[in-house]
């Protein structure tokens, strides 16, 4: 009885601490956008919607969210489809050294997503005529995300049983049909997770879209957020906090939608 009570108290404390730790930094996002004189302190705001009004006067804000959506959705679709196909094949057919190969790609992806690869990526996009195109941003970012996506998805695919596929094959299903009707439903929560991960990554990317795009009407939110500063480089907190909130909402909505619709976890509950 006492032991049980102690365990309950311990558990409650644990969750209280975890919830406190994860929610505390978020308070600013809930207060500053509505504050007439936002500072970096989280405080009860002098309530106003004025910040939203002045933000909407900025000609690039709404279009930047649309651009973020386009670039994130494009990259996520590309990453999920290509990674699912590759991960399935790598999981089902033995290729010598495939794990090592995947890991090497993963390592190279860390070079390409860093600052130092800026010039090669820019020159590559120039030569392929991809400067100032959404496609250029999508392909460049997808290239950096694919190895990790394949790496994670292959793990899922390894974890799903092959017996269904064998029976489907006996009934004459083609490999694409097997993938579509048997494997995909099994790993759907995993695909959803990868999609959200890819969207979140693209959503926050600044350097690649910044160097690859010229027309501000194509710039994503991450780039426009960086323009809300003064001549001397001081952040305009009224605009930044408000834009931060607007700019975060689509990702949060997407996560809620995806997790309701497809589930949001790694294996689909199928035991080995």
């Amino acid at each position, binding site marked *: 009885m006492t032991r049980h009570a102690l365990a309950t108290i311990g558990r409650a404390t644990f969750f209280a601490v975890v919830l406190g730790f994860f929610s505390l930094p978020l308070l600013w996002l809930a207060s500053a956008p509505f504050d007439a004189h936002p500072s970096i302190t989280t405080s009860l705001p002098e309530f106003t919607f004025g910040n939203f009004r002045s933000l909407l006067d900025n000609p*690039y*804000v709404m279009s930047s969210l649309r651009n973020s959506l386009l670039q994130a959705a494009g990259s996520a679709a590309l990453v999920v489809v290509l990674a699912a196909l590759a991960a399935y094949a790598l999981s089902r057919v033995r290729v010598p050294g495939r794990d090592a190969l995947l890991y090497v790609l993963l390592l190279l992806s860390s070079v390409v997503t860093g600052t130092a690869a800026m010039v090669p990526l820019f020159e590559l996009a120039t030569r392929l005529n991809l400067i100032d195109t959404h496609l250029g941003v999508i392909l460049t970012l997808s290239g950096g995300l694919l190895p990790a996506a394949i790496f994670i998805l292959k793990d899922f695919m390894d974890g799903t049983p092959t017996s269904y596929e064998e029976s489907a094959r006996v009934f004459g299903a083609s490999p694409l049909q097997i993938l579509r009707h048997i494997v995909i439903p099994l790993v759907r929560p995993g695909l959803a997770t990868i999609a959200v991960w890819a969207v979140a990554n693209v959503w926050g990317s600044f350097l690649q879209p910044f160097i690859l795009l010229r027309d501000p009407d194509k710039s994503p939110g991450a780039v426009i957020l960086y323009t809300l*500063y003064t001549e001397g480089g*001081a952040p305009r907190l009224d605009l930044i906090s408000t834009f931060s909130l607007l700019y975060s909402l689509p990702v949060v909505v997407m996560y809620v939608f995806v997790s309701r619709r497809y589930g949001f976890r790694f294996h689909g509950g199928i035991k080995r």
Partner: protein
Amino acid sequence: MRPVLAAVAGAVLVLAACGTGSESSDGSVTLIITSNAISGGKNAETADWTTRWVIPEFEKEQKAKGRQVHVLFQPSGVDDEQYKTKIALDLKSHAGADVIDVDGIWVGEFAQAGYIKPLSEVAGPEVDSWEGWSQIPKAVQGLGIFEDKKYGLPQGTDGRVLYFNKDLFKKAGLPADWQPKSWQEILDAGNALKAAGVPVPIQLNAGTAMGEATTMQGALPLLAGAGAQIWADGKWTGGSQALKDVLGFYHQIYTTGLGDPKLQQEAQGRDKSFAQFAEGKIGILAEGDYFWRAVVEPKAGVAPMQNRDAAVGYALIPSERPGSGIRGQDFVSMSGGAVRVLNPNSKNPKLAWELLSFMHSAKATTSQLAGAARITSRTDVNDEVLGVDPMLKFVSDEVLPITAYRPPLAVYPEVSVALQEATAAVVSGKTVDEAAAAYQQKVESLVGGAANVTS
């Protein structure tokens, strides 16, 4: 799976179609202007002036000459270093806008890299016969000059002074028309302020977190006051006596409670120093005229002070001792400024020059000010507009004649960081000799050996 693939392929094709630029087919010419400004964001005034005044007026003027010209503005509005990276990448791949806004300090490194060419080489002899040259003082023209060649037209310049809070000065028994004649007099004022209970008597930018603000508002004017330029006669200043004097001055301020060492380390330290000055917590602050017209400016400033004109005093930065400054000066300052250059790969270089010189005409310069006072590159415009603002007139009349400029060389930004690190070391308690020795070593490694450094 198939429909998904088809959808992806379709999306890719649509996006690819969106991406290709449109070339006009009606025989008209398109010119592009770029600058680190964006409507609704950083430097919004410049962006709005470009789209609302320059473009329609220039297109109109060209139409009157019977030419169909379209001008586009490509805004940016980000951190200066990121903007620099972007235009460097553009120029490197022989692309980019026709008229490009750059910081004067980048001219040398861009020229050395072959990214930009002298104006007359790009646009021809009409450059030298431009009416504007006679209106731009030689020193200001220097912002766009590298190795005796004119690469760009300067837009304006600025100057650094010591600001002080007259209310706090009164409390400390200091005069409202304070003008220190030596570094010691700054320290004396600081001590009087400290005794009067002012939380931060002196704010002299230090450390790496403040970035170039440390160099321009702190290290370089002090160095000039100690009689040295950071780069002169082909050599860089190393851990010399002048530098040790500068570091010694920092040491005195930050180890005797005259300054707040922590503020120098904070990532947002400079913004905070603005806010603290406006709140009456800082007595003396070294800053550029930017501080006057955009920070404590009563209406639209970052840290507005309603009583700015009455409460904020300004004084020249004194040399270490009278006469100890560069060129034997009693007072010193540092200046910088932006210039506009032509893209050597422009398809219409003559027309691009017409646009560039149009943007620097007296008419355009006046319109860019939109009623606000600011030190432009043209004396004819300055004479007209600066009368309304005594502070900017002070900078134009008193500061610009004694000011100095930074060397426009590619390695300068790294030397600047070395200077910042030296001040940081002193502020955090290292001795002056240690910091100077480390600086000397660092500069030698940056500029290719001891032969290029004076010590």
